[in-house]
């Protein structure tokens, strides 16, 4: 008997597909996504329903389903597209079977049978989808960690650590380790910590920065905190945080100048010097002429 139900569904697949497509189109009108072209949408719908039928017919999950899910995920379509589609399919199938004339199966049985046919597909899709998300999240985590505490040796004895984004406990730990390792490795005398990209400096962030600066001092180098925006300076004062133990500057440029002074270095612009000499000679010539 179970087989009969399935056969009825498969035999009438054309009608069902038609009904399903209409329902889906109706549903999609409510949540129209203008970014998706109508053609792509219809094609995907058609493919989707064929895959559902393929799975229902064989009563097993096909590899088509996997590749289809993967494509939908890559397109960035929401999971609700797939689950809604399958729910609609269930409804269409049930309605069709109940209204089918030659059928003398009690309604609960019909419901149960359709459930048995469709639910494995839903489960598979949801698993696939959430698996893909978990994968993305963990990859991003790794990517974020790679970005979290870069150390750039810009010149002899001067190293810069630009910090961008929120600092949490885990990252603070990472920053400290990287900073100290880098100072030793690059023989840095001065380290500039740039917090231009840190959105909020609360007591915890400040605490971690103070600790890092203190640790840098202990290994014999100096830490300069740069990139303190005006609004951040005001909140730091309001919070009553004491940052007087190490030099601070408003911009990386100013901090870098200070760092050069501290390491007895200088940046000389060769071009402009030539120019000034030429100008000097020119003006001398002119003064002679006059």
């Amino acid at each position: 008997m179970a087989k009969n139900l399935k056969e009825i569904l498969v035999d009438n697949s054309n009608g069902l597909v038609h009904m399903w497509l209409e329902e889906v189109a109706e549903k999609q009108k409510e949540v129209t996504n203008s970014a998706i072209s109508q053609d792509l949408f219809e094609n995907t719908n058609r493919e989707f329903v064929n895959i559902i039928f393929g799975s229902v017919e064989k009563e097993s999950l096909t590899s088509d389903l996997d590749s289809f899910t993967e494509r939908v995920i890559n397109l960035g379509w929401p999971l609700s597209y797939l689950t809604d589609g399958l729910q609609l399919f269930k409804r269409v199938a049930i309605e069709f079977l109940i209204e089918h004339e030659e059928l003398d199966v009690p309604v609960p049985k019909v419901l149960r049978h359709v459930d048995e046919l469709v639910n494995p597909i839903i489960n598979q899709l949801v698993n696939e989808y959430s698996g893909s998300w978990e994968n993305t999240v963990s990859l991003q985590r790794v990517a974020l960690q790679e970005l979290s505490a870069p150390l750039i040796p810009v010149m002899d004895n001067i190293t810069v650590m630009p910090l961008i984004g929120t600092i949490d406990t885990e990252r603070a730990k990472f920053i400290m380790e990287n900073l100290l390792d880098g100072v030793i490795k690059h023989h840095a005398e001065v380290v500039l910590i740039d917090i231009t990209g840190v959105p909020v400096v609360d007591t915890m962030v400040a605490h971690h920065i103070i600790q890092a600066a203190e640790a840098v001092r202990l290994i014999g180098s100096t830490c300069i905190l740069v990139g303190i925006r005006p609004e951040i300076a005001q909140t730091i004062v309001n919070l009553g945080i004491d940052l007087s133990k190490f030099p601070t500057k408003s911009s990386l440029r100013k901090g870098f100048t200070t760092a050069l002074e501290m390491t007895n270095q200088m940046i000389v612009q060769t071009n402009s010097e030539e120019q000034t000499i030429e100008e000097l000679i020119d003006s001398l010539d002119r003064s002679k002429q006059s």
Partner: protein
Amino acid sequence: MDFRTCVNIQKEWDIVGARQFGRDFSKKLGFGIVDQARIATAISELARNIYLYAGSGKICFDEVENVGSRGICIVAIDTGPGIKDISQVMEDGFSTSGGLGAGLPGVKRLMDEFDITSKTGEGTEIRVVKWVR
């Protein structure tokens, strides 16, 4: 009291969520950039206190109005261990976690109004208000 929106604090990253929401909300109310930073920092402190000491709780946001001026009201609610001696935590430099101890007194200075009620074993509620200038 019914709040317009609440952000649950359970993980460390929820602090960022609450802060971001507070910043957007204060921007919508017409706060300047410095006050936005103040509000975001205050939320950060309150949310971190919830995360560190109570484990979980929530930060609620609402718009308040007083004769002619508008403001943001932020309430941090938790059901944690509570604070035994409130005057002690309001002192600068007091911390049980090895931090700077500037959190709560700092929040008080960052905001215009500050109310704290706490019962040992029942939880803490901190209500702060900042007016648009």
